[in-house]
């Protein structure tokens, strides 16, 4: 009851001034799914929430490279590959597909050692070589799934199957978001085999669903753009008419809050229209920034735009941004022909993003994570044509940097071939989910939602720990 009154008070406040913005936050309510004695009413909104404990990070950019990037060819070189190049592996390599082999293949590209931390990054990633000292690698990642769809589900939802909310949804659910004129969770680009389910809220309220956004200044969000044949004045008039009609029609229901928030939502939508179009308009960026990202560069401009947009979004107070690393990473064949283009696609953008976030001091608040759902094997697949590499869930690496994370640190390792992680360092997706939430001030065990008679969480019953070793 108390809750209802405060809600109403806020609605009254909302009629004027700033309240109108906060009002739009009263977006969803869910009575029925509430379990427990009687109907416990629960209201959801996107207003900022107190974390469980002081947070190191306020927002997250997650670069998700769906398809299985070959980390041993990118930023995790293994000396054993040179040693055994062309020879059979000294121990059994368990592949997945039927035309795998036991023959080791060294990385076809040279690596360059970085100045400060002395870490080797492939020459396919010349820009990343320059910023690699900034990032922390987790070199002992594993996953228990070997197919794309199941592994991708696992990596974002904690379960190997469709039907569970993704990391960004859980974060929005726990923390809300700073900017009430934009969604809490935004997904940029494409590339996950599982499509929009990689940013779905599943059974969490729709409020926490990842909103698809495109780095397109004209139409960044569905239905955000005013139709061509309607001018600004007409749209203003439309909104004014709806408001007048709604006021008239609401008269018999003075206490109804759903109806009230629907009225306010038009104002919010109008603000969102301005805000989203503004944030998606990259042209206002300085020349220096544009030079950094090289937005028109062939083969990488599309991704760089998404990276720049991600920065603008967190700067505007969006809680969680997920960027997809494009398609084509599933290099079963002809890795030599394919990987250069793929690396080129992401190299400039992600490196510029690191530099940009750092220069603007945004790493104070922003955590940046980059990973695929698994890596690739050290052995050759498709021996008879141009060789590629099969999926490797037993050992791969990801990197993180920014708020709350050490700089230039390496955690864990794999065996000399980069095949399996060393057991004492073994980490899985749930450890990453626990750690990311921890950095945001969320206790991953307490961030729960009642579903089908259980208090569900992102981590669930999976074993998990916060990887304290990488925290700053």
């Amino acid at each position: 009851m108390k809750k209802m009154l405060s809600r109403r008070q806020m609605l009254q406040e909302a009629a004027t001034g700033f309240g109108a913005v906060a009002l739009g936050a009263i977006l969803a309510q869910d009575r029925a799914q509430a379990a427990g004695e009687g109907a416990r009413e629960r209201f959801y909104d996107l207003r900022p929430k107190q974390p469980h404990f002081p947070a190191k990070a306020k927002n997250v950019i997650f670069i998700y490279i769906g398809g299985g990037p070959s980390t041993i060819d990118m930023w995790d070189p293994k000396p054993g590959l040179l040693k055994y190049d062309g020879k059979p592996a000294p121990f059994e390599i368990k592949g997945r597909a039927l035309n795998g082999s036991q023959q080791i293949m060294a990385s076809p590209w040279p690596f360059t050692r970085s100045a400060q931390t002395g870490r080797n990054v492939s020459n396919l990633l010349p820009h990343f070589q320059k910023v690699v000292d900034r990032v922390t690698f987790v070199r002992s990642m594993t996953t228990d799934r070997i197919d794309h769809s199941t592994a991708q589900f696992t990596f974002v939802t904690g379960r190997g199957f469709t039907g569970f909310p993704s990391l960004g949804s859980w974060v929005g659910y726990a923390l809300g978001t700073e900017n009430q004129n934009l969604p809490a969770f935004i997904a940029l680009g494409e590339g996950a085999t599982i499509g929009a389910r990689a940013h779905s809220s599943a059974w969490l309220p729709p409020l926490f669903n990842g909103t698809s956004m495109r780095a397109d200044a004209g139409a960044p969000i569905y239905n955000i753009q005013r139709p061509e044949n309607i001018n600004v004045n007409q749209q203003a008039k439309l909104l004014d008419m709806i408001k007048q009609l709604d006021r008239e029609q609401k008269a018999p229901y003075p206490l109804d809050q759903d109806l009230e928030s629907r009225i306010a939502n038009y104002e919010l939508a109008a603000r969102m229209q301005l805000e989203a179009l503004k944030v998606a308009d990259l042209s206002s960026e300085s020349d220096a920034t544009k030079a950094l990202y090289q937005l028109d560069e062939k083969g990488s401009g599309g991704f760089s735009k998404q990276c720049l947009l991600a920065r603008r979004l967190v700067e505007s107070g969006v809680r969680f941004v997920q960027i997809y690393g494009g398609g084509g990473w599933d290099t079963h064949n002809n890795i030599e022909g394919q990987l250069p283009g793929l690396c080129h696609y992401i190299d400039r953008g992600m490196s510029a993003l690191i530099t940009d976030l750092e220069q603007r001091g945004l790493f104070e608040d922003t955590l940046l994570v980059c990973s695929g759902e698994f890596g690739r094997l050290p052995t050759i697949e498709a021996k008879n044509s141009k060789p590629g590499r099969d999926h490797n869930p037993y050992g791969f690496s990801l990197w993180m940097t920014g708020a709350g994370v050490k700089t230039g640190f390496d955690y864990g390792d794999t065996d000399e071939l980069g095949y399996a992680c060393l057991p004492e360092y073994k980490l899985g997706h749930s450890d990453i989910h626990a750690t990311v939430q921890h950095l945001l001030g969320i206790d991953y065990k307490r961030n729960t939602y009642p579903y089908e008679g259980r208090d569900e969480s992102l981590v669930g019953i999976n074993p998990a720990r916060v990887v304290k070793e990488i925290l700053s």
Partner: protein
Amino acid sequence: MLKRFGIHTLSLSLLAGSAFAQRAPLFKDEILPILNKSCNQCHNENQKMAGLDLSTFSGVMAGGTNGPVIAPGKPERSLLWQMIESDKMPMGGKLSNADKQAIKAYIEQGRFPKEQMDAAEAAREAARITPEARQWWSFQRPVKKALAGVPGDAALRAHIDAFVEAKLKEKHWRLSPEAGKVMLLRRAYFDLTGLPPTPAEVTAFLNDKAADAYEKVIDRLLASPRYGEHWGRHWLDVAGYSDSRGDAGDSDREVSWKYRDYVIQAFNKNKPINRFLLEQMAGDQLVNWDPKKRPTAEQVEAITATGFLRTTADITDNQTIYEVDKYFDALQKSLETSMNSVLGLTVGCARCHDHKFDPILQKDYYRLTAIYQAVFDPENWLAANLKYGPWPSRTVLDMDPQEREAWIKDVTSTGYKAVRRMEDLLEATYQRYRAELKAGRDLPEARRLQLRKDIENDPDLDVDYKVAKDFLSDTEMEKRYPELLMWKNEIAEKRKMRKGESSVKPNMIEAAWDVSKTPSPTYVLLRGNYLAPGAEVKAGIPTVLENPAKPLVFDDPKKHPEWNHTGRRLTLAQWLVSPEHPLTARVFVNRVWQFHFGEGIVRSVDDFGTQGSKPTHPELLDYLAVSFQEQGWDLKWLTKEIMLSRTYRQSSAEIAERMNADPSNKLLWRKAPLRLEAETIRDSMLKVSGLLHDQMYGPPEAIKRGADGQWMEEDKKSNPNRRSMYLQQGRTRPVTFLHAFDMPEMTADKQSQRFRSALPIQSLAMMNSPLVMRTTKAFAQQLLERTGGDMDKAVNLAFEEAYSRSPRPAELAIAKQAIAGEPDAKEGLRLFLQAMMGANDFLYSY
């Protein structure tokens, strides 16, 4: 099963050399010290972590919350061994090899008297399924007990009101007065058909002064084909219907729509709900269909109904060797979703261990699994996406034998397969080229050649023919890269030689049926892990619902040579709809109530267990459930009684005091306003603007990506103006407009109760969507045509169409101003109509 999944038991023979090769270790002297040393800090009499006490022999025998820990003679089936062998236990350490071998030998050779094991298990179950647990309200058979003062033979509607009023009386409240006629009529139309009434229908109702005017409307609407569509859509939410499979590429279910049509027809025909449930759970067995034969005309309907068991996501694709867990997932999803829909219990919790809150044992879960395993048999799997066989597949060919044979021959011929493979490769090539161009990479000839080779060599090649071509059209691509066109022509040529796809048109039904009369055995999966099978279990129902005096018997199919199936699902389904069943009818009538009132009498409509809500009106729920059964599970009758009750007919007006005391209307002191569902909003927009096309049934209408990337109606090749339930519903491609208004994606496999969220993306959809633009344009055009261009009349008519009433003076003033302010009056009218659609009176049923 074990053999196929590569769980070899060979390691057992490696005991040679161990001290225990010759004799069993002694519990007290040799085993207990190990347990004391390493396990009993946590698993002792007092602490009993995971319900397990390992400090005594009887404790070891009794097991814990994860079930028994010892399977005599079978270490590999014993949780105790599994945990220590994998070093998962002891926590933070591990046993020495010698200790491990001792325990293993003990499990293998130790003496575990059967009676004692059975007694231990019985005791463990008794501890879970206590007499109190059995007393849970929803496990008791509902009793029909009229309130004093209401004659037993009074119509159900009178009893409904009496129960509701009795509760209100405790607060000294009464039912709200009856809603005005227009409000009531709109409410009835939206509730029964998902569409608003026409002005003529409103007028007719207002002019009908007969006492039964409202009742006649209800009768007429119940007889309308629109009723089956709207209520069918409700059930499809409960069943988790989707036109896609939920696999990696979210491929289409080719003939899922047949199940959708079955549901619509069932509601329109008023098929008794017990029969409706029976058919969906076990239609194939009900009609004893022989999967080797073409279903007879009478069998087709019942077989189509089993599409119910196929709605859940199924990501099996037979592409890799890592499939087995996907088999189990598909099996379990179907089991959990259907049990949840019909039984109203969340059995899924017992997949890994005894249910934490409800008295459902892990064993119960796997007994239910055994029932479904005859359809979803991991040993004999029918993959999901085998459109072209091999047969038998889960798509039943409803064709006469000759045609069937000819079709199979055609589509499985080498030549045909080659053409299809070429098509796949070509489509993948378009997609890969597009992806490259989109990423800004050049496509010189050498690169294209290499890409094509890569595609050909890709073992994961998974072609999605639905991918948007918004970046570059096929024609544009063909202009740039001539090989595509050459290739396309080659395929066309090859096809022509084969005279099209096949001379035969296939007729398929996606159905669930027992793959064999002797399915593989079912095991309790320890901690839900399919690699850790425990004790074997037989088909059965949850223990707590079993009548100890008369346990449900699943007959051995061997005793019934005439059966073409195991009979397991039929036995289950018949039990579910039996008169003494405590849950099924209650769960169903509660859903019906929820679709009318927005909330159920039990608000957690999917959970009647201990974690669910208790009924706000338990006696009413029981009265409804029993009456419904007595009336032959007649849904139209039940619906009419509910809608004729004064409870339903109440006004939605607010009463401040009650809004404060009972804001969520638990006591039903009014009929709360409800935001309309996504489909109803879109369908109403089409209807009032004169665009709605009421063609029923058939394959879904295609959707496409719009200019800003949103999913919307495809208007060139298909009909964009049909009801929303006929638009294609993919798990990853929800129509953006509908999705904004909470149409589920079915990522969670079902959504029995819609969210009714208020989100700004809904406002954006009403401001800017192509749908609102085209419907308002047609609406304005149509109004002006009908009124001969008279703006005042047009505005009046707009209100009658959209709101079923005349404009209020203030509204009229807004309209006038809008129209006068625009240089083009028609555009002014359109803009005003858009405001009308965006306003609350269009979006709510009051």
